[in-house]
């Protein structure tokens, strides 16, 4: 299968070919590749792609996957509507 047709990041629609290009260009950490390609910045926050990218980095550098540092996990755990947060915050203010 063509690497251009293998989707690594579904949220941002990034292919394996793009990830490999990034590795060739010298970006060898999940954090680097995230910033250049936006992988892991979509609604799922890297839950699908980050492990795959970790594996590709390991393959490229010929090291074990566990030696490749995972990206920093940031809040929130799931997407939350802003006005719901605002509403809860205002209710909290009244108490």
């Amino acid at each position, binding site marked *: 299968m063509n690497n251009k047709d293998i989707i690594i990041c579904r949220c941002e629609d990034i292919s394996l070919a793009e990830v490999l290009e990034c590795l060739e260009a010298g970006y060898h950490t999940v*954090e680097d590749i995230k910033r250049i390609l936006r992988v892991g910045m979509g609604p799922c926050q890297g839950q699908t792609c980050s492990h795959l990218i970790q594996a590709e980095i390991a393959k490229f550098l010929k090291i074990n996957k566990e030696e490749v540092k995972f990206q920093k996990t940031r809040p929130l755990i799931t997407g939350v509507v802003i*006005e719901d947060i*605002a509403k809860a915050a205002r209710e909290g203010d009244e108490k």
Partner: protein
Amino acid sequence: MTKAEIVIIGAGISGLSIAYNLAKAGMKNIHVIDKGYFTNGSTGRCGAGVRQQWATKVNCIMAKKSIEFFARANKELNYHKDIEFKQAGYLILATTKEEDLQFSKNIKLQNSLGIPSEKLTVEEALEIVPHLNPKSFISATFCKTDGHVNPFLMSEAYFLAAKKLGVNFHFFEEVKSIELIDNQINKVITSKDVYETKKVVNAAGGYSKEVGLMVGVEIPVFSENHEILVTERTSPIQGPMVMSFSKNIYCQQVPHGSFLAGRSNPKALPSHDISSSWEFLDEMAKTISDILPEVAKLRVIRTWGGSYNNSPDRQPIISEIESVKGFYVACGFSGHGFMFAPITGELLTEIIMNKPLEDYAKDLHINRFKENTITDYEHSVV
């Protein structure tokens, strides 16, 4: 041991621009050292806005020159991708009478320097951003040539252009100490190597104070955590960055489709903390739902923090250090290092190469704090 003409500490946007400009001016053997991954510091954490609507003359001039560079950056740097420079303007809301008065003064200053900003009524502002809550402000200013640049891609464009000119980059390498001989830079000792050099640039962003202390120089800056949230992407609904100093918010839709919104924390203490807090999320959500109710219908998907490196007058320090020969600083950008980076690189290159400086740039010297010659304080800061 590595011999270097100059060592630049920090590969954020300032260090990158300085390296590129020095190499362009013909300097060889430039080494840029960064303790982390590409754009790990404040550059990669910034709000991606570029504006010229300032309240001080120096900031206006620096911003205008930088915008002119962003417009030609893809071409000048021969970048194979796109820095995503989008000029959809900044719409700055006045919510109090004092702000309204101050903004009229700002517009006068900006126009006198060739910045095409204008004062708008509520109705005129609504034509530009129809989903604004009309009750949340009393007037606005707008500059159509302000806008957005992608911090990661702008950094990469500088990085690749500098590499092509022969600049050496070292990531995941931390500067541990700097050796002086007779108050002259002599060596830079890192976690991996020792650099023999007569010149050092401190472009360490949030850590510039610590780098200054390595040579016994007290730089009057401090770091402060500023947080940002980003939403899921949606179709284009908002052209300009919407900003309010009194409501403590900036909020833009980036070309990718997501919204970025940030605010400062009035209770933040000087520190290197860059964590996320629920208090930020609460306050930010309330302000967005007040000013931009349509945007409040979107989901937040991520929050992060980054350091503002604040100077006493909230204007940059771009300067030699008289007490240590060969030591130069570019810091204290007070949250605006990204949008000023093009001119930062040009000015510090002129200083390092001993070229005459334009008058306005002399106000950026560090001695303004020592000699009490601060001319101006920048109030237009979130």
